[in-house]
């Protein structure tokens, strides 16, 4: 099911002539029950693909928003097993929306790659992004994921030249994630004009859809990225909504989902008036 679910979603959106909106939220943020409510609400609010972070104590590629989200989740006892529980519960009501897990290597090493790949696939996970597991270290993980039919989604970055790109796209499937800025998540802003040629380069080399993330905070920015990429990913801006809602004692899921709606709407409208690609 797994790779097929991602491929089917991108094929459908291509037919519609629009980019995907990918919403990233952290498992267990601010707590397991609220996170599940958010997760279940994401497709209805307009998320075409869901990225679910599994928390790690030392997230070296994250800026402050996602660092804090991971801290909140860990403080409430979220685990990798708990993350898969959330995925299982999500799949009870949604069989079509691709769900990608995103996190760091060490919790996966602890679980064991082969067992984790099987358990993740059984829970309904379609793909995995492991931030600190570059192609040089990923073969054992890729073997395990292949056996379970889960996509290993790779990151290409502004430092990825054409030679390096060949290494990056080896054994990847589903889509390629283009990191739009050299930096951590949620700090710098992505520039669509600067990103466009790289998206084209990655698309051509991989033959896969290209999602762009790491610097998209506003509907306007999401729309401009959606004009050049196959998907726009927003994460830090959503987990910041969690933090603010908690601070202001507001309804967390309502606040996050309303932000998702505005971003998704912007992505849907982005190519209206443009020739469909």
């Amino acid at each position, binding site marked *: 099911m797994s790779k097929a679910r991602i491929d089917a979603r991108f094929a459908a959106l291509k037919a519609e002539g629009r980019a995907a909106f990918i919403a990233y939220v952290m498992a267990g943020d601010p707590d397991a029950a609220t996170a599940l409510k958010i997760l279940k609400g994401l497709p209805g609010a307009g998320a075409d693909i869901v990225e679910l972070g599994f*928390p*790690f*104590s*030392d*997230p*070296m*590629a*994250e*800026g*402050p928003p996602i*660092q804090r989200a991971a801290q909140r989740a*860990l403080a409430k006892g979220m*685990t*990798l097993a708990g993350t898969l529980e959330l995925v299982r519960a999500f799949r009870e009501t949604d069989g079509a929306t691709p769900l990608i897990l995103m996190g*760091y*290597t*060490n*919790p*996966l*090493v*602890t*679980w*064991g*790659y*082969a*067992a*984790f790949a099987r358990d993740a696939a059984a829970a309904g996970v379609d793909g995995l992004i492991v*931030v*600190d*597991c*570059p192609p*040089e*270290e990923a073969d*054992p993980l890729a073997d*395990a994921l292949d056996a379970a039919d889960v996509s290993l989604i*790779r*990151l*290409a*970055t*502004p*430092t*990825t*030249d054409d030679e*390096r790109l060949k290494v*990056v796209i080896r054994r990847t499937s589903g889509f390629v994630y283009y*990191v739009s800025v*050299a*930096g*951590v998540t949620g*700090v*710098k802003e992505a520039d669509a004009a600067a990103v466009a040629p790289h998206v084209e380069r990655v698309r051509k080399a991989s033959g896969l859809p290209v999602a762009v993330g790491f610097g998209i905070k506003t509907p306007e920015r999401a729309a401009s990225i959606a004009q050049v990429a196959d998907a726009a990913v927003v994460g830090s801006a959503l987990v910041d909504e969690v933090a603010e809602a908690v601070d202001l004692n507001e309804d967390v899921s309502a606040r996050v989902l309303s932000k998702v709606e505005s971003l998704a709407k912007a992505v849907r409208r982005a190519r209206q008036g443009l020739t469909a690609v």
Partner: protein
Amino acid sequence: MTAAPPSPGARPNDYTAYPDANGRFGDYGGRYVPETLMPLVHDLGAAWAAAKADPAFQAELGGYLTHYVGRPSPLYFAERLTAHYGGAKIYLKREELNHTGSHKINNCMGQILLAMRMGKTRIIAETGAGQHGVATATVCARFGLPCVVYMGAVDVERQKPNVFRMNLLGAEVRPVTSGSATLKDAMNEALRDWVTNVHDTYYLIGSAAGPHPYPEMVRDLQAVIGRETREQMMAMEGRLPDAVMACVGGGSNAIGLFHPFLNDEGVRLIGVEAAGDGMGTDRHAAAINGGRPGVLHGNMTYLLQDKEGQITEAHSISAGLDYPGIGPEHAWLHDVGRATYLTATDIESLDAFKLCAELEGILPAIESAHALARVGDVAREVGKDGIVVLNLSGRGDKDVATVANHLGMQI
């Protein structure tokens, strides 16, 4: 690697042949960094291989080590410590007499020359006790490069003299408040800076840890300690020592001492980890004795972690040893049985600190005092005709406030 904890490998014929081309010491090491950094890590590996083989680079480095750092450091027969313990002769390798007061400058001098050779114009570093931060700030001042040092906010508080020293040397010290606000968090923050400023920034890692090639490069640069020790020992005693020992946090001073002796199987290699409040408690910093293999900060190695694979906080009186991991070469030397890793508690290290001051007139760094806390056991085990060399990796002036505090005194 497989996801299962690495199993002890067979003993290799040549211990100095590691790491392999993938930066592995057996199952340990590797390059677990975000993709943005991968091209830089590859460039760095190539640049180090070229510099290492370049006689002009080595000559330049050698000149600075002699005339700026003050090498060779003495190998000193600690007569009164030897008499006190009544076992093997104890020699101290006096790395604390280097410029800036610790072994850290050996590595910094090599890496700053490499950074300039690579055309980098901005230097970042992480520091725990502040010794590496001071050494980095020093070489940056010497060569006129801007320097940012990340330091856990907790460490900034307990190592104030070193923070001020770094400021005097023109470095900007950025306190890190995320996580446990100690060395591991400083390293996270330095990695975040590096990933953001890839175009001009050189990350000067202070320990034999992190992604390949750092464990190899830092070891190569610290191996001057072991090479000198070998020569000095041959000149003074006409033979190799029976054991060499050093404290281990990330493990750069230990691997620097051990490496030139790796293939001399008659020389025992002994590292001493920080046991904090004790190995029976969860407040220690002993990655090998109290942790298990995992991935953090770019390499697979022994780590303090919970059953979920979340990194747990290390605890030690010594900021320089207060790190939940250990360099990957130590992890491998432990698994293959070539080196032995003991532990010393905060209290034992404080006692050793005082003893060394009283008997030898030397204030050791509280880090080095962890090795001193076990030197009596090792000296007695080796016996009267034997020789033990201990790396006195740093001086203790920076620690007097901490020691006074633990002794219940105000200074």
